[in-house]
């Protein structure tokens, strides 16, 4: 059980989907119960991972990836692709988020979905497996297969159960993401060949590619970085590629947009952290400029634009879901800012902010879904004075708004504070530009809260809205608990992220001041070379990085 | 008498090419399907001419039984015959349905 836990977590939802195939189509109740049971079992199965992983963290276990499963090329030996699973601190947190949100969203779509219930839950559970696969895959090919396979169920979820313009949104989502991932395929092939050219072995194993990717000459590496960047930036979504998000969100069913915002967007940032940073340190730290701005400068620039631009646009949205969608663009702008600040603070803050965004935006979409289920409209103008009619709903929404806004003692603040501090330490101008995002977040959320909840009930249709049912409250309870836990006591999360983050920073910026009591200090003095001995070629080989502040 | 021009392989090839071009133009411009089929036959005959002329030429190089070209020519002839037969058969079927053998009537299936 211990060393096959990952496969079990990965395939539980799939087993559920296959089981659902045999349930007769018209027996809706049975289908709903089986789907919910499997979603919950999927979450339960991931629970034992927590104590085991925590034990490893306490023992300060050195292995970069834990719970590794499967040999290097046991899947397709002739091209060197293998079924290898493994997690580290970052993917562990994201997996827990995925299973949690998966269960919450399936629970929340109990009453939302009436037609073709069976296919809905089948595609949803297939989507769940696809997402878990992306976070667990340690083989680049396996990663790519899960990355693309996950598009199909999402496309169908939006396309069949979506809103009025569902076809347009579904096709746009599919084409957009596919275009990005296809470019990524070329990048993968290039690395695959580069690895063969250097070591004479064909393999897709990520740990092997970590060794040879950083030595790709700069003028090739820039194009490679760009190919990966497009793939991940579309997923995040970063500034110029974000236009699919509002359409996909507005048209997707509630549970669909909870999962879309909660987990799918995190794959882009996960991709940056797992692939772009460790593979191309020579690009990120290279002072060469394009339009006299370094590559890293561009990344930071795009994230800052995303923060401010996303917040400004969401300020003026008329449709609630579009507003929350644009707010995700702004929040993920923070995450990418944290990633490209390339400091331990920025990185761990960014991963934590991804978890927070999953929780708070997931909750926001549930909130919008609840109103949509009752009134079948998302126009803000339609509502007013809801807190007179639905007080419990209003309080839960207030808590989630505050968490999303980044109020201290709630999870949003911890992430944003660490990111801002990390970015500020790198270059105070970046930090200064990011801070208005925090103010704008407060502006658009409070203005939304005022227009929907405060004031007297003007629209007669709003009078007889019934407050939250116990099931609906149940969907919020885990999210609120997580929000307060991360807000009040985030230390365990930082400790989990400690090892992966310091390893990534050691690869990308070897001359970054190593922490005094660093994780692997007791081996030898904390020289960067030793810190990353297991994973990366000694720093001496990596071209001297300019590092430091611009 | 030998002042008369000595006919070499090149002349045959030129004739073959001319026949070939005639056939192609015939296929492009004529509107009657039978005429088009005949132009295709023309092209195949051009090929035969080429083959026989070249076979004659190579006989001079490889000795008397280097008759690859002519064997090829025979096969091309049989093929042309088969094609003509099938072509006319299909044309008749087409004619039975549409009472015309005009090429530009063939417009049901479009872009």
């Amino acid at each position, binding site marked *: 059980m211990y060393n096959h836990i990952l496969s079990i977590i990965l395939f539980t939802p799939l087993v559920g989907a296959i089981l659902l195939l045999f349930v007769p189509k018209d027996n809706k109740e049975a289908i709903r119960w089986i789907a919910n049971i499997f979603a919950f079992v999927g979450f339960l199965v991931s629970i034992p991972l927590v104590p085991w992983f925590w034990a490893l963290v306490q023992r300060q276990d050195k292995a970069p990836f834990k719970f590794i499963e499967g040999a290097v090329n046991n*899947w*397709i*030996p*002739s*091209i*060197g692709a293998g079924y290898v699973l493994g997690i580290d601190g970052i993917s562990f947190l994201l997996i827990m988020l995925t299973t949690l949100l998966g269960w919450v969203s399936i629970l929340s779509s109990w009453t939302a979905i009436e037609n073709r219930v069976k296919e809905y839950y089948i595609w949803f559970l297939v989507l769940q497996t696809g997402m878990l696969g992306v976070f667990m895959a340690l083989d680049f090919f396996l990663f*790519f297969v899960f990355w*693309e396979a996950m598009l*199909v169920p999402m496309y*169908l979820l939006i*396309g*069949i159960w979506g809103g009025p313009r569902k*076809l347009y949104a579904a*096709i746009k989502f599919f*084409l957009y993401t*596919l*275009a990005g991932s*296809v*470019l990524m*395929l*070329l990048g993968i*092939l*290039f690395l*695959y*060949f580069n690895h063969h050219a250097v070591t*004479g072995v064909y393999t897709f194993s990520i740990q092997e590619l970590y060794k040879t990717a950083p030595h790709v000459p700069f003028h090739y590496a820039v194009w490679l970085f760009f190919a990966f960047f497009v793939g991940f930036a579309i997923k995040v979504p970063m500034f110029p590629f974000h236009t699919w998000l509002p359409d996909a969100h507005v048209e997707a069913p509630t549970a669909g947009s909870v999962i879309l915002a909660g987990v799918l967007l995190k794959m882009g940032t996960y991709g940056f952290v797992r692939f772009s940073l460790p593979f191309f340190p020579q690009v990120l730290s290279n002072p060469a400029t394009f339009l006299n701005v370094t590559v890293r400068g561009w990344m930071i620039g795009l994230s800052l634009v995303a923060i401010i631009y996303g917040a400004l646009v969401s300020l003026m949205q008329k449709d609630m879901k579009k507003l929350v969608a644009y707010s995700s663009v702004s929040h993920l702008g923070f995450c990418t800012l944290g990633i490209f600040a390339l400091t331990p603070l920025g990185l761990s803050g960014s991963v934590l902010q991804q978890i927070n965004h999953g929780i708070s935006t997931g909750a926001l979409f549930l909130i919008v879904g609840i109103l949509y289920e009752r009134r079948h409209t998302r126009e803000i103008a339609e509502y007013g004075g809801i807190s007179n009619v639905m007080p419990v709903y209003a309080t839960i929404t207030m808590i989630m708004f505050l968490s999303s806004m980044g109020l201290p003692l709630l999870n949003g603040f911890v992430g944003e504070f660490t990111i801002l501090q990390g970015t500020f330490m790198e270059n105070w101008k970046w930090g200064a530009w990011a801070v208005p995002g925090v103010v704008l977040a407060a502006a658009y959320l409070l203005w939304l809260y005022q227009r929907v909840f405060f004031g007297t009930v003007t629209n007669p249709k709003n009078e007889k809205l019934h407050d939250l049912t116990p099931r609906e409250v149940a969907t919020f309870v885990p999210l609120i608990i997580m929000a307060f836990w991360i807000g009040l006591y985030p230390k365990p999360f930082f400790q989990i992220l400690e090892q992966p983050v310091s390893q990534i920073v050691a690869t990308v910026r070897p001359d970054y001041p190593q922490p005094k009591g660093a994780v692997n200090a007791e081996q030898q003095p904390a020289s960067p070379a030793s810190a990353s001995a297991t994973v990366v070629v000694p720093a001496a080989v990596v071209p001297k990085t300019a590092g430091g502040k611009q | 008498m030998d002042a008369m021009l000595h006919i070499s392989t090149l002349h045959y090839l030129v004739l*073959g090419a001319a026949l070939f071009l005639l*056939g192609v133009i015939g296929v492009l411009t004529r509107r009657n399907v039978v005429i*088009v*089929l005949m132009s*295709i036959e023309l*092209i*195949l005959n*051009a*090929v035969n001419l080429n083959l026989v002329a*070249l076979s004659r030429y190579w006989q001079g*190089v490889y000795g008397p039984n280097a008759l*690859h*070209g002519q*064997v*090829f020519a025979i*096969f*091309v002839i049989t*093929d042309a015959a*088969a*094609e003509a037969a*099938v*072509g006319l*058969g*299909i*044309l008749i*079927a*087409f004619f*039975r*349905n*549409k009472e015309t053998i005009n090429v530009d009537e*063939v417009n*049901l*299936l479009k*872009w």
Partner: protein
Amino acid sequence: MGLLSQFSWTDYLLALPIILLTLFALGILLIDFMLPAEMKWANAVTAFIGVLFAAAGVVKIQLWMHANALPGSYGFMRTLLVDRFAIYFFYLFLGGTAVAILMSMRYLEAEHENHGEYYALMLLSVVGMMCMAAGFDIVLIFIGLELMAISTYVLVGFLRRDRRSNEAALKYLLLGAFSSGIFAYGLSLIYGLTGSTNLYEIARHLPAVLQDERKPIAIIALLTTITGLLFKIAAVPFHQWAPDAYEGAPTSITGFMSVAVKAAGWAMLLRILIGSPFLLSGLLAMRSTWVPLLVFVSIATMTGANFAALTQTNTKRLLAYSSIAHVGYMLLGLIAGTVTQLSPDGIKGILVYLLVYTFMNLGAFGVITSLRHKNVIGDELDDLNGLYSRAPVEAVLMLVFLLSLAGIPPLAGFWGKYFIFLSLISSGHYVLAALGVLYSVFGLYYYLKMANAMFMGKVETGEETLPVSLTMRAALGVTGFATLFIGIMPDRFIQMVNWALGIAQNPAIAKLMH
């Protein structure tokens, strides 16, 4: 008299599959007279058994070659070379034909054209294909091409009462004959220049020809030959017959044509351009001339086919354009490698692509064939509307085929593209790779159009489930399982292609040129 002595026992062995198929074809023609109307399906069964026998013959050849550890062996005075490459294609043809036969049994009853000649012609066209694949002499290749082409013309025009079928046949015949005429002219010039019809001899003499003043003739010869080749696989400047032929022909024949005939076309193209992977010959010496040509053709094919497919409303015509687009991607495989040196991964890509393409396309056309019942012709896009509620299994299978055609990873279609792009990247054609990759995203748009119709379209006609015959179910089962299985566990099939091309088992780059 001396000639007879040159035939040896091995010639008969190598020709065994061809002989068996011809015998079965003639047998069907004879039996067809005695069969009463309701027993017509017997022809299909005999045809199917014929294919099985032929397959047994191929296995016998393979075992024999394995016994003597030969990569391949000549036959009929070095005109026929049955090497592993040819055997691979034999299996491909026979597999495609078997599934096509399964698909067409009930279809012909629905069309009331259930005559034996249908299956006889099919077997004969397979004989033609085998000659093209195994032919090492331009005459044999030409004859194989003509045999296949003529039997396919008749098959396309098989629905005598349907005007579209007639028109398609006529159009296909005229253009086919025209292109084989040009092709023959090219071959004659090649013979003229090199003095021999054997590909190896041609390859030996060609470099000398290219040096002196006969080069322009050689170029004309190359161009006219390549016209014939590109016509057969329907690359862009010569592709316009394909949509009409595919749309007009009976759907099962369209399936057969898009899979087996196209694979034969590719076999012939590879034979003539590079000879055998174990004995590189043919027009490889002129690779520096035909690569730029192919670059233009492949880009034109991808652009033309994808753009045209966007606005199609007829499913058969849309799948025709999609198969033309796939030809565009396959041509990239040929282009990969330096201007003078071939890339083994490229050829491997083409072969894998053909294998995977066979199952995907046959499956897709199978679903469209199954739509044909009572009054519905079944090839308009809105016939697919709401297929999900009428035949859920068919709809899901169709989705699998469409996504595989689009190249989504867990399905077989991805593998074809994977190796092609792998070869392009390894030989440095980054721009071409990027272009190819972006076009494949294009492709997804029109596949999704069909998927949308199936899953999200409303059903106008009555809410009755679609009757699907047993054989059709079997055909779809085979193709669906193959698409999924190759997609998820492709290793066995990649090794088969490695075996066919003689690439060493371990993926280190094999030295093809020996």
